[in-house]
């Protein structure tokens, strides 16, 4: 079995504490019909696997499990594929150990 598929990122995120800012995602994906190579790269490089393909083959982001590293910004912001900010003060991931 392939290692990648055997690692359940959702289980890892379950260890973490979050305060989700409901209805105010801090990352947005620009509307598109066909994803750019940069957007497709985010499917794999995001350590919290926040990016997923929907049934139309477009890339969607769900920021609830985001650990705020900024990797997607470094890749996807220069092309305009995503808009990236920090969550509002106090919201987002709350590291106990860091």
């Amino acid at each position: 079995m392939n290692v990648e598929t055997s690692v359940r990122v959702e289980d890892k995120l379950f260890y973490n504490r979050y305060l989700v800012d409901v209805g105010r995602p801090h990352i947005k994906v620009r509307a598109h019909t066909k994803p750019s190579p940069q957007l497709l790269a985010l499917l794999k490089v995001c350590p919290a696997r926040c990016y997923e393909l929907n049934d139309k083959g477009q890339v969607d982001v769900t920021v609830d499990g985001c650990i705020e590293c900024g990797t997607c910004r470094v890749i996807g912001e220069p092309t305009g594929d995503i808009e990236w900010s920090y969550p509002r003060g106090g919201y987002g991931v709350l590291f106990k150990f860091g």
Partner: protein
Amino acid sequence: MIEEKFDAIVVGAGMSGNAAALTMAKRGMKVLQLERGEYAGSKNVQGAILYADMLEKLIPDFRDDAPLERHLVEQRFWIMDDRSHFGVHYRSEDFNEERPNRYTIIRAQFDKWFSSKVREAGATVLCETTVTELARDAHGKVIGVRTDRREGEIHADVVVLAEGVNGLLGTRARLRERPKPDKVALAVKEMHFLPRETIEAHFNLKGDEGLVVEAAGTISRGMTGMGFIYANKECISIGIGCIVADFQRTGETPYGLLDRFKRHPSVAPLIEGSEVKEYSAHLIPEGGYKAIPQLYGDGWVVVGDAAQLNNAIHREGSNLAMTSGRIAAEAIVQVKSHRQPMTAANLSVYKKMLDDSFVIKDLKKHKDMPMLMHTNSQNFFLTYPQLVSRAMQNYVRVDGTPKAEKEKVTLKSFVNARSWTGLFGDAFRIARAWR
């Protein structure tokens, strides 16, 4: 709206921000520090190793009450292939000293303590507040910040940008470029909890002795990167990081790499039976000297990771952060004591002071190293580790083959993989970048 005006606003409460805020507050400046986390440390991620010398310059008696984990008595460097590791270990009783040089720490806990010292020194620390924008006057001088908490602007004579590696504010204000994918690494880390005595048995430690393993090789799948294992009191920090552009190119996943590293036969026994309590990720500045942006301007300075001050070769970052924060603060105090305005010309003293410190001297020394490692990642992180493993196995396995023949086989494997020109070229390039 906060009507009062501050001498300085510090954005961020990590190592560099706390160092800057503490230094300025101690010198009687009116300091406001803004942090987006629920407390200082709750957004901060590091391995982590604390370098005592740089903290002593800020808080000489920090050992009295800082939340330290273990003082390091042993350093292990591993070159790994999929089934082996070849190691250089250094352990010395000299490190069991009265004032140890390096400690493992847990950043969320350490930073909370550091922040309490900043408050004691008289700074106002406001958490759960994200700075959204720099406020500038008609001439472009930075005069304060805007936050998501309050209407309007908060004003100060100078803003210290200690906002971390992403440096969002500085990028938005066009003070510097966004970090590029080939100049930052993405590291992921897990905290593995075990009883204290189990950790001490796994790593051959006693009391508060600590240990670090740093590992490179096929674990990064041909990408530029490395793995690390730090022994804390009751948990083990384990992680791996690689250059973002390499992840992008290869399609490897960070959690896949970490999982493979954890299951490596040399690593798995160290964390066996542990309970994971946190999973984190962070970017690390890897561009070195050549990636350092403009460090000061009218009404602002930038410090720490936001200034990309990280020594990737020696894996030092938090000490550069603390030192740059302290030096920036000292420069600001100096300008203020001369009753001069916080202009770019006056704040340039910060860069002069930083140039004279180990921070810039060390980064300058290794200025060609990041590029060398990145452009030759297949050789340095895949080919050589495999060759070294085969050579070591050939050397130690006793099977009746005459030694002269064994040596010939090893030499041939190196020449076949890299050619004589390649071998000498690699040696020359490393020597040149290192000197």
